[in-house]
């Protein structure tokens, strides 16, 4: 039961047309599956397509090709009641605690909105449920009459989590839920997400650019670069034995809050920057910054191979 996948992303691509000639391939032939009850982490730098995949999974975007199946149903083919059911069971927690709450609605209205849409409760019962959700995320029930601008960033993020929880979801896409928060608050929110996961048996897709936090919260981690998944492994395995040169570089660029360690000569410092996704390099997308680039990297786009069981990597070094 534990290994049963709840969501399968199969060869999904998404192309945005910017103008008649320019096209942006945000996600290219991405495949992975998420098991029920686990936390699946996605990391990558800005523009790598990690947020696009989150929105594809929520059905906010339609894929250019490929399918996303939730409980064996193609989510982009859902209609009517089934679609509403999907919209109830799959929820999102957003990055920006300021933009993700409607400034003109009270906390009560924000949290209750989903219950109203899905007709889960009304009247007094609805209010009681909102209070309960607020307390569950560490707020107080008398906060319900307040407006979002009265709360701090971390508190707003809690409201956003309460809104998602209100409709009793099974699957939550958390799109950089902590990157806009202060360090001391990040840990609060992460601990809250983990507590809720245990209480409600939730499955998470946790999207972030901070590998240390993703590694900590996730069971398995996928590393993305320029719209592609370059490595996928259990999080401890990824940390212990990173295969892809990009993963290695990401791991070593994390500043360590320990002066003794920081002073040691270190790390794979990458040269250059992420290429423009409108005009990606031929072959392997990472070859322009890769310290191990070979001739073949410019010619052939590497395919994913399973290096050791459950550890996938897309790199010519391992073929």
């Amino acid at each position, binding site marked *: 039961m534990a290994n049963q996948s709840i969501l399968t992303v199969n060869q999904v691509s998404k192309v945005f047309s910017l103008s008649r000639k320019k096209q942006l391939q945000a996600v290219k032939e991405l495949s992975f599956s998420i098991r029920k009850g686990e936390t699946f982490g996605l990391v990558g730098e800005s523009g790598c397509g990690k947020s696009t995949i989150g929105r594809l999974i929520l*059905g906010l975007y339609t894929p250019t090709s490929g399918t996303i199946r939730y409980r064996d149903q193609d989510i982009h083919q859902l209609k009517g009641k089934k679609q509403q059911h999907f*919209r*109830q069971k799959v929820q999102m927690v957003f990055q920006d605690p300021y933009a*993700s709450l*409607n400034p*003109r609605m009270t906390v009560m209205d924000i949290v209750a*909105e*989903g219950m109203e849409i899905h007709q889960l409760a009304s009247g007094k019962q609805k209010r009681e449920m909102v209070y309960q959700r607020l307390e569950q995320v560490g707020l*107080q029930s008398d906060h319900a009459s307040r407006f979002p601008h*009265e709360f701090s960033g971390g508190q707003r993020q809690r409201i956003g989590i309460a809104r998602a929880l209100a409709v009793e979801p099974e699957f939550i896409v958390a799109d950089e839920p902590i990157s806009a928060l202060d360090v001391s608050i990040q840990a609060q929110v992460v601990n809250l997400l983990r507590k809720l996961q245990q209480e409600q048996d939730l499955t998470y897709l946790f999207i972030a650019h901070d590998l240390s936090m993703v590694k900590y919260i996730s069971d398995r981690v996928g590393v993305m670069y320029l719209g592609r998944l370059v490595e996928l492994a259990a999080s401890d395995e990824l940390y212990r034995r990173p295969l892809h040169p990009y993963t290695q570089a990401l791991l070593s660029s994390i500043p360590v809050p320990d002066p003794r360690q920081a002073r040691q000569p270190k790390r794979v410092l990458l040269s250059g920057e992420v290429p423009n996704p409108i005009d990606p390099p031929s072959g392997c997308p990472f070859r322009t910054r890769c310290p191990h680039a070979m001739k073949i990297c410019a010619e052939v786009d590497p395919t994913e191979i399973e290096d050791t069981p459950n550890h996938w990597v897309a790199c010519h070094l391992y073929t």
Partner: protein
Amino acid sequence: MEKESFQPIQRNFLSYQRLERKQVGFWQDAWYRFRSNKGALLGAIFIICIMFFAFFGSSFSQYDYYSQNLLEVDQGDSAQHYFGTDSLGRDLWARTWYGAKISLLIAFLAVALDVLIGVTFGGISGYFGGRVDDTMQRVIEILYSIPNLIVIILMLMWLEPGIIPIAVALSITGWVPMARIVRAQVLKLKSQEFVLAARSLGASHRRIFIRHLLPNTVGPIIISVSFSIPSAIFFEAFLSFIGLGLRPPQASLGVLVNEGYRYLQLYPHQLLWPALLISLIMLGFNLMGDGLRDALDPKMKR
């Protein structure tokens, strides 16, 4: 120092997420901001005073705006006639305030129509985007490319001049800026995360539009209204001045300026009062509009 001072505090850990500031709602916040702007407050006072006299000013005088008295033509101000009389002996105090009332009514009606059409059109155009938006924008561009004076003159030749026809004629092209403002605002808002959140909760288009988009466009709409009222008054005055407006004994500020202007060299006060009132209304609304912009514009928020 006491030893007890260094005992640990026993605390209730549930009270960690608390709010210290007192509750300030959106409108309350805007009001505090508005209040601190002296110019805006002055503008608002002008407008309230003018509106008071426009609607109740006639009761301070025994005269009405249409009765002629050929024995008392072209008088200066006196205790009887506060603003004097015109060339037909009509009391100018009564006529000026009546004219102000009509001008304001025309402006309010025209702007209400602007808001109704502009919000609907701009909202639909911005929300649905894509081809719908393209088509609707072309319509706006075509409307904008026709000189509005021609449209209004044609309209008024077809309809009898009156309060409603003039208001309709003004809003025929007047809603376009409103539609643009609403569209821009909706375009900006619809990609915000709170709208995405509502969509991922399964909210219908109607719900998103009414509960999420519209309340957040109220600020810019109010600001725009506070600037389009004076411009409607000005335009109405202009129409009356060139003879396309109301016909005497009906009066609006424009009609009065037109009449007063004929005797400018002999009796300058006949022009002075309506012209002064137009200026004060314009000034008042513009000052208030500036204040409203500061009070309602979220960019100013700290």
